[in-house]
């Protein structure tokens, strides 16, 4: 009797492990986010209204200077008939290639942001197959941040794509409304759909303030309204306020302080040499 007990118990254990292990394996595969990251992880830059694909030239220059790299810059404009025009280069070997996605129709307004998000999705589908990437970080200036947010909520497919870090610079989540209690239609919609925002997203919202209320164009309260969308939904939501020189709405992307923030939080390259690792753990 006892002789048969151990084989029986082992067999039972193996059987149970097999059944439950299989369940885990299948579960794991079903919600598999592409765990295999492509080597290329571009940084997608989206300009705001009235801005063209040249919007980020100064900022990228500044970043390349600071990090002592020569990352490539590809500029793409999505036309209203969905075709893409390219200029610049894409060099996957460089640390972080930059891709600007701008829109031919760069008007302001909620209805246009909806259209732009669709165009952006179209461009991402084409670019990700053309340049073989499945994860990226994104920076949006002004309305570009709104386009990115809407893209994440409406079009982003976590099974195929992964976003590492999102930084929006002076994005007016509540348009020009200064009173946080008065939510615009867009903010209401964005909050309503915020469950779709990936829970592993690391999000930074940067605001500039020339005076105590705004950066000359966008009210601080409107930037701050982003917290109703991202907070508790994204993995991290950090609100950063930058003051001082070059803090008008249009100067913000090339503002030295913001360039440093991008370097630190999006590129993850720090200026100072890191201290050597301490080997002995306590």
């Amino acid at each position, binding site marked *: 009797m006892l002789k048969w007990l*151990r084989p029986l118990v*082992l067999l039972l254990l*193996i059987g149970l*492990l*097999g059944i*439950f*292990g*299989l369940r*885990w*394996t*299948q579960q*794991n*595969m079903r919600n*598999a*986010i*592409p*765990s*295999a990251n492509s080597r290329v992880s571009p940084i997608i830059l989206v300009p705001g209204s009235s801005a063209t694909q040249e919007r980020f030239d100064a900022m990228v220059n500044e970043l390349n200077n600071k990090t002592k790299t020569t990352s490539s810059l590809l500029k793409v404009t999505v036309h209203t008939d969905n075709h893409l025009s390219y200029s610049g280069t894409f060099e996957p070997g460089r640390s972080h290639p930059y891709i600007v996605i701008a829109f031919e129709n760069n008007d302001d307004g909620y209805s246009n942001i909806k259209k732009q998000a669709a165009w952006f999705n179209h461009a991402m589908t084409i670019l990700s197959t053309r340049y073989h990437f*499945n994860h990226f970080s994104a920076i949006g200036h002004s309305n570009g941040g709104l386009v990115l947010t809407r893209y994440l909520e409406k079009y982003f497919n976590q*099974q*195929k794509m992964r976003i590492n870090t999102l930084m929006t610079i002076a994005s007016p989540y509540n348009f020009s409304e200064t009173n946080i209690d008065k939510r615009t239609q867009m903010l209401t919609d964005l909050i309503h759909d915020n469950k779709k925002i990936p829970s592993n997203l690391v999000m930074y919202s940067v605001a500039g303030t020339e005076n105590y209320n705004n950066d000359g164009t966008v009210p601080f309260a409107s930037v701050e309204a982003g917290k109703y969308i991202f907070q508790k939904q994204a993995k991290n939501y950090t609100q950063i306020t930058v003051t001082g020189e070059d803090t008008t709405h249009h100067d913000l992307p090339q503002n030295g302080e913001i360039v440093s923030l991008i370097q630190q939080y999006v590129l993850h390259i720090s200026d100072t040499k890191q201290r050597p690792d301490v*080997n*002995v*753990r306590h």
Partner: protein
Amino acid sequence: MTSQLIKITKKLYKQNFYQAILSALWLIFPLEFVAVTFHIIYEICFHRNGILEVILNLHTNLPGFYVISYLLKSTNDLTFITISLLLAFFTAENLFELRSKLSHEHLAGITSLFIYFLLIVETAPSLDFPQITEVAGNLLIPIVIGLLTGYGYSLLAKNSHIKLTVSYWATNRLIIIFSLLIVLIGAISFIVYQTQLFPNYLSQQLQNLIQVGNRPSFWKIILATFLSNIGHFFGVINDFTTTIGNHFSSGTVNLAYLADHHNLWKIPYPITLHSLYDSYGALGGNGMLLALAGTILMRVKNQRARLVAGLSFTQTLFDQGEALMIGIPILFNPLFLIPFLVAPIVSMSIGYLAIVVHLVPASAYVIPYATPSILRAFLGTNGNFGALFISLLSLVISGLIYYPFVSLIDQLTAKKEDDPHA
């Protein structure tokens, strides 16, 4: 051929150094058994994605999960370091006693232990606990150091007329010996750091040779397994095959494909270390030890072998064959060299053929960590019973390969018992 093998083995058994190794291994077997048992508990319950951890979701359901996991991990590491220290100690002791038949107040053992500990800590790539543990996993170093020290002391004992005890004379000599040793080991470590020739240098060079190209071919996998198993046979416990498997991106490409298409039959790289080695070539750890444990239990009458195999059978189900390797022992045992190297290669060839002729899909799914080896192909192919069958088949065939060699255990011990009477 079998009689020759027995002859060689018997000759080896008569050598002092071999006896020293064998009795040292037997002395550390109980500790190794306990250490491996706790190691298995750590791996299945507390390792990230360990099979019980994912099934029961332990890291949220078990209070104090991280504390227990940390404690268990460090206890494990320390036990394995202790085992190799003891091995250095006992090997030197045994050899000294066998050669000079003197009482010497454990000087050989203490010296050997001292040399070994200093050497592994000082030549580890960094003064980091896991790193030291990794170096300590190499059981060949303590054995060689133990043998050299034991041999050295026995020479010293022969040439001096005074007994090697802690007498006035001996103490004086010992101070010189220990000081010289410290300087010597310091110098060796200095050279190691300057030249970057760390103890794992050779295995890294071999890895670089095999890691050429962007996907592993069948022959590369066979070669890697062969080298890894030779290492294991001589006590160099390594994760050579895993490191090489991780180097190639074919596994991740497969996963990316699966995430999109969910079709196992058409994955881009069906032949990987995961689909061959993990699924069919390492059932019960390196060398298909599960087959060996089973065969011993079925066939052998020798009490000691039965005891060891009975104890470690459950462990080999979870791929931890170290206790079995030390207890039988398989380490340095010419009886088992051939099946230990051949059985995994035959099993992997069976797996390879089955995959190539599309009898079973290649296992490419992510499976829980420390899944029992029998289930790995089954889970990796998303529950394909054909794959489970091929696993069992290769296990049975490995058992058949081990069979003629295992039966030699009884012959050997029978003759050994006869010898004194003859």
